[in-house]
């Protein structure tokens, strides 16, 4: 998969063409920076949605964009998600690269018709004559004590829809790299931003030399079993690996980053190297992305597996209210229980 290779501006004002700049940013800041750099580089990039202007988005991801780039480049729309995504389709058809924000995961559903019937299918319907280079940003998943309709893990709906790329960063660096890659992509991208990680900090390289869409990464090496995670589940998997290490078990952690396209190579190599695996995801398990991962890896690595791959994820229930949410979220104990179940006695 192609990464963004062209030089990028570091801020609207100055161009950095030589050494990449480094900085410690929160994920929200890294996303803001990615939008800024993309807007500075390409006047076709426009940002719009609900409260993205003066307010800077409810998570401040678009903070300052209207002030710095003008109302034509970053603007509030009427409150209608189907209209936002539908208008983005038309703008993408006519030379723009729209980046739209859905305010929360569950508030993207009014746009579902546009996403499934048009965003995903335009290239195919028109035999490649009409491409839709657009990004739908979705603050997603739980763990922030949000009330109902603010915590959905909706990745399976998008991942199940051919024609969409689906990305879910877990670090500020990946948030930057992947959002730049998503904006540069000739195909539409659903960009899932784990809400609970917006304020987590990390080192970011700008411009990034990391690979873009379609590559998973081994976040922690280990020899006994592989945890496969993405988005909000990645830090939980890393915590579990840390806890397991204290108990003398060496767990490897793979961060998918890109759900579609799926990096079979990296994931399967990791699973083969350990012979055991657990998939960790926040979403309900039934017919979910984690089920797809288990199926793909089993098909490809059956002979290397010492035990069936286990899943740790949300229960098959509507996302619970804040006081009960800790039961729904995959945690270290459940992951370690699943690891314990991987037929070690053989």
């Amino acid at each position, binding site marked *: 998969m192609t990464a963004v290779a062209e030089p990028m501006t570091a801020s609207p004002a100055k161009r950095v063409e030589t050494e990449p700049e480094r900085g410690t940013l929160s994920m929200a800041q890294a996303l803001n920076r990615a939008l800024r750099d993309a807007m500075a580089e390409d006047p076709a990039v426009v940002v719009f949605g609900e409260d993205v202007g003066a*307010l800077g988005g409810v998570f401040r991801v678009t903070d300052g964009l209207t002030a710095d780039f003008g109302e034509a480049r970053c603007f509030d729309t009427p*409150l209608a998600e189907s209209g936002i995504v539908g208008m983005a389709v038309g703008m993408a058809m006519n030379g723009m690269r729209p980046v739209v924000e859905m305010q929360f995961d*569950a508030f993207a559903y009014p746009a579902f018709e546009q996403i499934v019937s048009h965003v995903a299918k335009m290239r195919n319907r028109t035999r490649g004559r009409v491409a839709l280079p657009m990004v739908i940003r979705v603050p997603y998943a739980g763990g922030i004590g949000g*009330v109902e309709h603010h915590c959905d893990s909706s990745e399976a709906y998008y991942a199940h829809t051919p024609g969409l790329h689906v990305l879910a960063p877990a670090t500020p660096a990946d948030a930057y790299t992947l959002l730049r890659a998503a904006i540069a992509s000739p195909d539409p991208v659903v960009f899932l931003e784990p809400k609970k990680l917006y304020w987590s900090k990390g080192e970011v390289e700008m411009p990034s030399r990391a690979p873009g869409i379609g590559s998973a990464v081994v976040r922690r090496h280990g020899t006994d079993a592989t945890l496969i995670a993405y988005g909000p589940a990645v830090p939980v998997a890393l915590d579990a690996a840390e806890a397991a290490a204290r108990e003398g078990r060496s767990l490897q952690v793979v961060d998918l980053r890109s759900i579609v396209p799926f990096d079979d190579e990296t994931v399967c190599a990791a699973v083969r190297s350990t012979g055991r695996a657990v998939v960790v995801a926040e979403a309900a398990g039934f017919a979910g992305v984690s089920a797809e991962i288990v199926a793909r890896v089993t098909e490809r690595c059956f002979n290397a597996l010492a035990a069936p791959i286990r899943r740790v994820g949300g*229960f*098959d*229930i509507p996302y619970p209210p*804040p006081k009960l949410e800790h*039961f729904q979220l995959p945690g270290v*104990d459940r992951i370690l229980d699943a690891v314990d179940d991987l037929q070690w006695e053989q």
Partner: protein
Amino acid sequence: MTRDPSHLLPAAEPVALIDADGRAIKGADGTAYPAPDDAALVKALGALLTARRLNDQAYALVRQGRLAVYPSSHGQEACQVAAAQVLDEGDWLFPTYRDTVAAVGRGVDPVEALSLLKGDWHCGYDPHEHHVAPHATPLATQLPHAVGVAHAATLRGEPTVVMAMCGDGGTSEGDFHEALNFAAVFHAPVVFFIQNNGYAISVPLSRQTAAPSLAHKGVGYGVPGERVDGNDMAALLAVLGAAVARARAGGGPQLVEALTYRMQAHTNADDATRYRDDAEVAAWVERDPITRLRTHLLDRGLIGPEQLQDFAAEAERVATHLRDGLNRDVEPDPADLFAHVYATPTPQLREQAALVADELSREGAR
């Protein structure tokens, strides 16, 4: 059938019966909307005082960490009170997340009404008990449901009217338009009640619509629209009351836009200084719905200090009830996670419930 839309259009000016100084507006008496009777106004003042007290109590409880978040209707209490007061017992109310006070006005226990925002359970009350639908957070999605309840009532021969509430921002969603159209086509007894408080979080009305007013949105669907001063209790009772009576008499749906103002930030989590001036807010303080009605009733000698004391005591009683209720921590039952997903839990859910029970028993054993 006439194609002349004029009977669907709102009046040039919002209906107002009492001005900002509490005086009855001259000549307003002779309009299509006679003033509500005195008893209704006195009752409404009591409800208004309780409403304000509830809003402020809930806001304080957020600061004390007893509520996760509270979208306050501070400043919009006249709309909240009127929406509930004009309904009969068998009628239905469809509230948004900001309409807790209206739900309470229908008889819902405020502690149960705030369960959503406390985080105990999504809908803390039984919608059938007081005919109050669950608070709707996904904007405008409740409006087609309201039409459905109303149409079912028609088919079942019941005299029910449905009050369907919505914000100015919500009118931009497709569901708002589909609901109006369905209601008109099926001649459903629904009153669509928009509280135009000027903002959808940070986005001002000018970014929602280029129409002359939100009440004009009914015209395209064949639904008559009316505008009303949303801080004038008397006008609200008159206009909403007439709309309800008309719907009950078989006159079909109506759209009412109340012009009001969101005095506080969208929720406690919002920073309103990013998008509006204090001066704009200050100008609305003078139009406060409570001061206006209280002055009016005092001036006319319809209430006295004793009555006001009684009202204040009642407001305090409700606030205390809310405080006590929210300060009580009820340990949430993890079995609830699985109990209400289906009428009968699937075998898979039973397995998952067993897993949680097992985790808890192991924790207990530790």
